[in-house]
């Protein structure tokens, strides 16, 4: 039963490298391979490519080239932001604010900071996944040094009012005349949300290239000028002494081209995804015993997250895979751990409902035909799995 078609609806997990990004990378593997730290022409070509990539990214984000640090991915960016700011500010306070539905790259780094003496407040979002600027404001104490709230959630797609939250923090920060650093994990944003650092009052921001049609293993950490920050990866003097290690030149080049394309095509892509997404949501909610997870409108244009009563996520994913459809679930049985998605639990779902969740995340390549194909299969799959389930106890 080999799949006859292939329909990729897991763009929040990863994306293919855009052909233009890959093409831009290719010369830097085996031809212009010089180490940017070296003196000679070959190496200066690499150094220039790296500088250009950095500036390209800065131009998209609305910041300066020297505020961009290349990392190895979203996880390193998140870990580094938190550790970098916390260690730089630990003499001024030890309180950090985040929310329960952040990515594990944030949550696990917070847990580690807790062990070394930091106090973490984990805000609870409402049942749509939203937290309010007021919630953040209330949580600030005279020891608060860092707030990290993601721009958009990777599982349920809820988009936080990050600009308002940042404003509140900057206000509080100047009222208390203390430095409170604001970080946002924007890994899910590129190509879907506008990021303009001239207006957005965040001090740090994380990106991961493979989420926006760039290469895996490359991340970006934006650190606004004058932000208290101690480097975490220590070695050579690369990245203006903020991250040691020979630079991944092709990776940086590919990332910059992918980000530029994502930004350029954002509006068209959002419009396209939104239409397909709404079609998916509307049709799937017609199946009895279904529930939309996340916010009805404050959600990423490409995110569908639905729970099915009496169905387990992995089973539906495998059935979809048999039909050539790639999707994801917050079910514990699809994770290495035995816990269902902390995000779904974090917005108050019963473990049971978290088990039955299905996430479809769209990309600019998805078509109406693909949506119709998926919609033609899901009701039958759900029905069949339900017919195999024991009746709920009365």
């Amino acid at each position, binding site marked *: 039963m080999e799949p006859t078609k292939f329909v990729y609806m897991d763009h929040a997990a990863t994306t293919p490298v855009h052909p233009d990004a890959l093409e831009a990378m290719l010369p830097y593997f085996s031809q212009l391979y010089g180490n940017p730290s070296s003196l000679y022409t070959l190496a200066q070509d690499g150094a220039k490519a790296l500088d250009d990539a950095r500036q390209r990214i800065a131009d998209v984000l609305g910041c300066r080239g020297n505020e961009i640090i290349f990392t190895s991915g979203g996880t390193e960016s998140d870990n580094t932001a938190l550790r970098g700011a916390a260690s730089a500010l630990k003499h001024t306070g030890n309180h950090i604010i985040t929310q329960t539905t952040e990515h594990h790259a944030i949550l696990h780094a917070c847990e580690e900071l807790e062990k070394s003496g930091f106090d973490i407040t984990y805000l609870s979002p409402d049942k749509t996944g939203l937290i309010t600027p007021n919630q953040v404001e209330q949580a600030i104490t005279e020891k608060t040094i860092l707030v990290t709230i993601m721009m958009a959630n990777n599982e349920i797609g809820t988009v936080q009012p990050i600009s308002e939250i940042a404003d509140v923090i900057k206000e509080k920060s100047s009222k208390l005349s203390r430095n409170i650093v604001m970080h946002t994990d924007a890994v899910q944003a590129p190509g879907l949300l506008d990021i303009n650092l001239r207006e957005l009052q965040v001090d740090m921001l994380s990106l991961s290239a493979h989420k926006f049609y760039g290469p895996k293993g490359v991340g970006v950490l934006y650190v606004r000028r004058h932000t208290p920050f101690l480097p975490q990866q220590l070695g050579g003097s690369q990245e203006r002494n903020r991250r040691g290690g020979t630079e991944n030149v092709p990776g940086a080049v590919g990332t910059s081209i992918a980000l530029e394309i994502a930004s350029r095509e954002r509006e068209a892509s959002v419009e396209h995804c939104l239409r397909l997404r709404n079609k998916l949501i509307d049709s799937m909610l017609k199946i009895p015993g279904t529930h939309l997870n996340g916010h009805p409108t404050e959600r990423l244009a490409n995110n569908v997250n639905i729970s099915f009563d009496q169905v387990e996520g992995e089973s539906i994913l495998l059935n979809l895979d048999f039909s050539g459809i790639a999707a994801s679930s917050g079910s514990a049985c699809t994770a290495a751990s*035995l816990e269902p998605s902390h995000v779904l639990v974090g917005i108050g779902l019963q473990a049971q409902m978290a*088990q039955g969740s299905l996430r479809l995340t769209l990309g600019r390549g998805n078509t109406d035909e693909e949506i119709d194909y998926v919609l033609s299969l899901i009701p039958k799959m759900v029905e069949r799995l339900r017919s*195999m389930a024991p009746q709920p106890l009365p």
Partner: protein
Amino acid sequence: MPKYNAIIMDHFQNPQNVGEFEDADGIGLEENPICGDKTQIWIRVHDDLITDIRFKTQGCAAAIATSSVCTVHAKGMALEEAKSLSPNDVANWAGGLPRAKIHCSVLAADALRSAISDYEKHPR
């Protein structure tokens, strides 16, 4: 992600003995409190043998497939033998399970055991 073997995949796609008996001699239901998977087993008993068996499972591929495998092997088995089946036996019949999925094979063996004890408590 766990990689399933061909036996599991086959039983997941074509599970055997799915369904229930209205007139079962014993019924057992087990639920995994952590991941929420559930298996229910219905048995018919004659002369201390399991003459027929049905199951329903809500759960992942491993839970569904091991239930199916378990019913296939349990059909025709003496009650005494079936009572002493371990999750390991079920996992072995299924050709082995990914490490993270071992707990799934517990459900079928447990549900079968509880169906037998239901029968023994209330022989019909």
